[in-house]
């Protein structure tokens, strides 16, 4: 939602609790547990949240989005039925999770972020200092190229290694590792002549998002 207008002020909350209500913590924990042992990778989870209808996405709290998305994902994959959630009980047997039941022994494993770096199959196409343009792509599938930078010119600042490619991983089409760069844009390139002249914005861009100039 980078660059959208009209959402109003940012409202920091002093001494904010980790969770405002108990159910939020349960949703967070369920999503982490089912994600880890049920094979719902992070990109597929993000796609499920982005795929909520816009009026639901914009009007729902953060953990409500997590709940609605994971419920949809588990239903789509035949892990649960909507009738079972409606009933509040399991009504039939389902296949076991890929990595088995999530138990106390699994907890420490998920407290550190997984690693997304992978062996490179080809040399990086760009190097720091290169001028690049982001492609104007508008897939209906998952992508991590934000709309507000599409078709704009920036400079490669860092190479961050070769990483799992979310655009394919989200759809269970493989890790398809790609080089990842920090690409920096002048704010006037993104927002026009009235933009803050002191502002520069960077994104983390996978190589397939970029073309040389």
């Amino acid at each position, binding site marked *: *939602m*980078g*660059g959208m207008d009209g*959402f109003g*002020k*940012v*409202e*920091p*909350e002093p001494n*904010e609790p*980790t*969770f405002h209500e108990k*159910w939020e*913590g*349960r949703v*967070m*924990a*369920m999503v982490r*547990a089912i994600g880890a*042992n*049920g094979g719902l990778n992070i990109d597929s989870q*993000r796609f499920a*949240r982005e795929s909520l209808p816009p009026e639901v996405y914009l009007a729902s709290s*953060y953990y409500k989005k997590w709940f609605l998305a994971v*419920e949809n994902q588990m239903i789509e994959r035949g*892990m*649960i039925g909507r009738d079972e959630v*409606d009933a*509040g*009980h*399991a009504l039939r047997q*389902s296949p*076991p*999770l890929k990595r088995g*039941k999530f*138990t*106390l022994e*699994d907890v420490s494993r998920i*407290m*550190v*972020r997984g*690693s*997304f770096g992978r062996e490179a199959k080809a040399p990086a196409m760009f190097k720091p200092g290169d001028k690049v343009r982001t492609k104007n792509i508008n897939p209906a599938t998952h992508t*991590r190229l*934000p709309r*507000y930078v599409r078709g704009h010119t920036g400079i490669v600042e*860092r190479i*961050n*290694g070769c*990483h799992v490619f*979310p655009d394919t991983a989200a759809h269970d089409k493989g890790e398809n590792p790609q080089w990842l760069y*920090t690409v920096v844009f002048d*704010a006037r390139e993104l*927002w026009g002549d009235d933009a803050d002249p*002191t*502002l*520069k*914005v*960077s994104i*983390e861009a996978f190589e397939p998002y970029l073309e040389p100039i």
Partner: protein
Amino acid sequence: MRVRALETVLTEKGYVDPAALDAIVEAYETKIGPRNGARVVAKAWADPAFKQALLDDATKAIGTLGHVSRVGDHLIAVENTPQRHNMVVCTLCSCYPWEMLGLPPVWYKASPYRSRAVKDPRGVLADFGVTLPKDTEIRVWDSTAETRFLVLPMRPAGTEGWSEERLAEIVTRDSMIGTGLPKAAP
């Protein structure tokens, strides 16, 4: 409500042990929070060699500090200077260095911050009561991949000779996101 219903279904299907869910919630409520990041920042302020190592490879540098949380790959520390102020956002979802700062606050995950940080960061900073000099460069890092960013704020004047423990107390969560500054020395 539906959340409890889902948990019952998952438990009855043998997918999750509720005690494991309790442990996850408890870890985020009691163990993993901005104290971790504050210790790293304080160490960087007090120890120039550690600071350099942190800027070179934050994951590796933090890995050498046994007493701070383990940290995932591809953490990048970005340094504030008199010339440049860094600020971190995730316009696409809510990417955030959990191991360093805990779970993100509501405002970080909400539409106003996600939409405006990349376009009007000075306006966002004003919402936090922060004003920077007009000519300071502002660099906003949009966390669009599995790299994570930790802002290394400037050490406040008047803290010379302080211990790392005392320094860590003035490092606020928001100063490590870039929407705030460390507390001033008394």
